[in-house]
């Protein structure tokens, strides 16, 4: 109960790291690092030392990517889902169905969805809409 299996890739990497720190410590360090990273991504308009602009889509990608990594780190290691029986993971994932339904609803009720959804879903939309 609440103990981790030591069979995953992350765990096997942690075992080889110096200092003798456990997986909780490295998970904590990773969470801190990615939080710094996401704040920095929003703080800077350009990648420091370069002229490359951080665009809206790059910020989205960073925020969503970092969110997924941090969410996984907290749920899998701090909340022990990785070592606990599968039923807990299934319980935790159950509301995701409803979250997806909500996102679907948001998409459908979006003012632009009448036009935008067929555009996203139809290959070669411009040609199709002109015919």
């Amino acid at each position, binding site marked *: *109960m609440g103990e981790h299996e030591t069979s995953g890739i992350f765990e096997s990497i942690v075992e080889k790291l110096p200092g003798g720190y456990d997986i909780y410590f490295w998970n904590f360090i990773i969470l801190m690092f990615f939080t710094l990273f996401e*704040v920095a991504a929003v703080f800077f308009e350009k990648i420091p030392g370069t002229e490359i602009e951080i665009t809206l889509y790059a910020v989205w990608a960073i*925020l969503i990517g970092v*969110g997924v990594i941090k969410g996984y780190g907290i749920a899998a290691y701090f*909340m022990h889902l990785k070592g606990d*029986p599968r039923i807990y993971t299934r319980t*935790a994932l159950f509301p995701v169905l409803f979250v997806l339904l909500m996102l679907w*609803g*948001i998409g459908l009720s979006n003012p632009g969805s009448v036009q935008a959804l067929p555009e996203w879903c139809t290959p070669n939309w411009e040609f199709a809409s002109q015919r």
Partner: protein
Amino acid sequence: MSGGEAHVENSIWMRAVLIGGVFLAIGILAFATMGVGVANVKHHAYEDAIHKYEDAKYAYEDAKAANASESEIKALKEAKEEAHHHEIEAHLSYLTWRTAGITILLMCLTYAAFIGLGGFLNSIYPDDAGHDDHGYGGDDHEHHGSGSPIIFSLGIMLFLMGFPSFQGALGNMLSGVEANLGDLGLSMLGLVIVTAGVANWWREDLPFIGNHEQIATSDPFEGQHIRKAGLWVFIMSEVMVFATFFSSYLRMRTEWCTGWQVNAGNCEEVNMLTASDFLRPNGAMLDGLGGQGDFMTLLPGAINTFALIISSYTIVLALKTAKAKDWEAPSGFMGKLLPDQKSAVRNYLIATFLLGSMFIVLKLIEWSHLVAEGFTIGTQAGSIFYISTGAHGLHVFIGLLVMLYLIFKADTVGYDEKNGQGIEYFGLYWHFVDLAWVVIFPAFYLY
């Protein structure tokens, strides 16, 4: 006393009453120093800054009316803008100290009332009453559940039934209008019953040393601890609560033309300011509001994010220490903080508690700044921001109230490998609160 429980004398609960007194003293002291002492000094500085700004403004307008030279008008304009900047800074500085003082006072009053009243209610029980079979059961008693959730739910129901008149009366009292004190009655009764329910749960849980943890006997959680399964179902419902806030926000946001959308070429003119326009650098401006964010405005949210992650780690350390079979005290300075296993568990919990309390104080300071800068609950973006972050803050605060009891138990009966699951189950809730912040922070503060 049954053999499967720790012996807890009722006098031990008086310690909780004393802790309540300590919180009361800390709250009053913090309010007197921060909320009154420092805040008054800052208020004087703020008044000076207002006068300087007005002088600079008149000097600039007079120079313009007298057709002064262009360079002189330019210099006066710069001086006026600088004075305005100082005035805003002085105002925010005053708000920081005032809000911190008031928040700490209110938090400490709640802590004191909660643990003090709970301790007092349990201390007045006769010694025998605490050792019947209402707890987790002894060796010779079969466990038959707890009445605490029913009492607690009744209290919540009465509180909510009386809430409309409660908040109306409270609003009148705060704004100096005559209020009918009877309007507070139903909700106050509800709060007392909530505290009694919680106190009853404490009385049942404190002697628990890990024997007779209830195990589920049917699918889908067969063989698992019932408390843990229940907590996961509760977390599942909490995911739904936060999902509704988040989806409302996303739905509204698709209709707003924010600074991000303008920069991406998706629309032409900003029609809505979000919290991030006030907090992050390069935020959008609308009607003279927003766009003033810098490192310092984003700092409270960023510190809070780190505080929650660190607190998640400290609660993991508390659990790990409680469960350790061959725990050794660290050497050096850490050895003084963590002298033995029992104290180490308690001190890790205290660290978690302090980080959580800091989260609430910084959150309210940040709110006070946002309101002062014009980001109020009256706009769509403001309402969803304050409701979502407020609901999250409420979860943190409820977690802190529960943590008060965990610290009390760690200090008295103690946690070890047999009853450490109490920390684990609370930790699940606390990690969930951290997880919710992982979504809220980028969505509301950064984007």
